């Protein structure tokens, strides 16, 4: 009779029915004569059968609609990025100075501490880029405020934050399409939606968080992240195809975004 050690590795496949006929006979023979191994097989089989019986109930937890939407938006982003793989990588040079400028402001301000949240910058950028795509695509059905005065009141009352004035944004060629308060992580974030040269641009403001400046590529988009005054800002836009145009826009975009930091 094979000893307990020699059949040890066969017991789980035996219980699972994932074993060849010769090995099955070997285990059958052993457990008939070995009470400890018989007991072990019986216990394991009882749990195996219980788990199979309860499998549907154990697997009844489902992903939230918000998670599903974000993953779907990431998929669409990925497809779009694959289609436009030849686009110029101009946003890095365009947005990096914004982060530097933000760093200067943060360093001269009183609150320059960086409290890293649990989320990595790449994930933050991906999530907000997904939200950027989703919100522009679903603007008509989401609760989006398109009246600038009402948007300003909403942001002030919800976050104690004064968003950029429409006139300042207009000087930089940014037209406010709408603003909304959206769920982010365990709290709320402000989402300002602009058109810039006909392209959608988002500025997110997440209160009570700080993180280091960075510029992150996210599948056809780039996200500039910076923090000041205990708030984190993320600017999301598609990578432009025209590098000269991007360089010309830089100073105007900087002015608007710095306004948004106060």
């Amino acid at each position, binding site marked *: 009779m094979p000893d307990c050690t020699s059949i040890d*590795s066969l017991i789980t496949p035996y219980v699972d029915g994932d074993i060849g006929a010769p090995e099955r006979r070997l285990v059958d023979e052993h457990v008939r004569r070995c009470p*400890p191994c018989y007991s*072990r097989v019986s216990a394991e*089989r*009882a749990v*195996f059968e219980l788990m199979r019986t309860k499998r549907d109930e154990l*697997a009844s937890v489902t*992903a939230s609609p918000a998670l599903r939407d974000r993953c779907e938006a990431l998929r669409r982003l990925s497809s779009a990025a694959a289609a436009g793989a030849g686009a110029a990588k101009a946003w890095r040079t365009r947005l990096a100075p914004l982060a530097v400028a933000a760093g200067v402001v943060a360093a001269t301000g009183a609150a320059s501490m960086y409290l890293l949240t649990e989320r990595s910058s790449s994930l933050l950028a991906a999530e907000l880029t*997904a939200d950027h795509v989703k919100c522009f695509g679903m603007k008509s059905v989401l609760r989006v405020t398109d009246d600038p005065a009402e948007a300003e009141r909403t942001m002030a009352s919800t976050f104690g934050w004064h968003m950029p004035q429409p006139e300042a944004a207009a000087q930089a060629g940014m037209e406010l399409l709408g603003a909304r308060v959206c769920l982010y*992580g365990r709290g709320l974030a402000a989402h300002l939606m602009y058109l810039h040269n006909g392209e959608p641009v988002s500025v997110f403001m997440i209160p009570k968080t700080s993180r280091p400046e960075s510029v992150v590529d996210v599948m056809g988009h780039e996200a500039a992240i910076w923090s000041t005054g205990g708030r984190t800002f993320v600017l999301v836009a598609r990578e432009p195809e025209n590098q000269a145009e991007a360089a010309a826009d830089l100073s105007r975009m900087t002015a608007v975004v710095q306004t948004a930091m106060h």
Partner: protein
Amino acid sequence: MAWVDSLYRTALRLTHVPADAEDLVQETYLKAFRAADRFQAGTNLRAWLFTILHNTARNRARDRARDTVTADSEVVDRADDSAVAWAGTSPAETPETLLLRDTLTPDLQAAVEALPDAFRQAVWLRDVEEFSYAEIAEMLAIPVGTVMSRISRGRRLLFDRLQHLRPVNA
């Protein structure tokens, strides 16, 4: 998006926190989309996603210097069977399957949650998500023999815990 539910369920078993589980799933999809060109046609796409999920979870744990999965795994892999409190269950006392037959789902869920991480992952991936031993080995970055050993020990720990719940349920 066909597997977002099962990825989320498994992420929840790994993180225990819904918001962290959602982060993990999103990061998994993000990595998968970025690495789509490295996916080998003909292999199991669902298993590939689960492998990314577990790799990401391990990296996060390492980054936080709280690698409970690895520490837990080392401990349980060193443990011998005598440490698993299933001994003393005589088949003559009670037919095991009948003993667990009326187990309530919340009790089973609680028992699964109470398992050490390494055992819970192996049992969950096998008995709920129904992956093969080889696929689980790839996901958890451990040998196939270790996968089977963890499933076996995990099931016996579950049996022991549920067996003791029986008088309460009865």
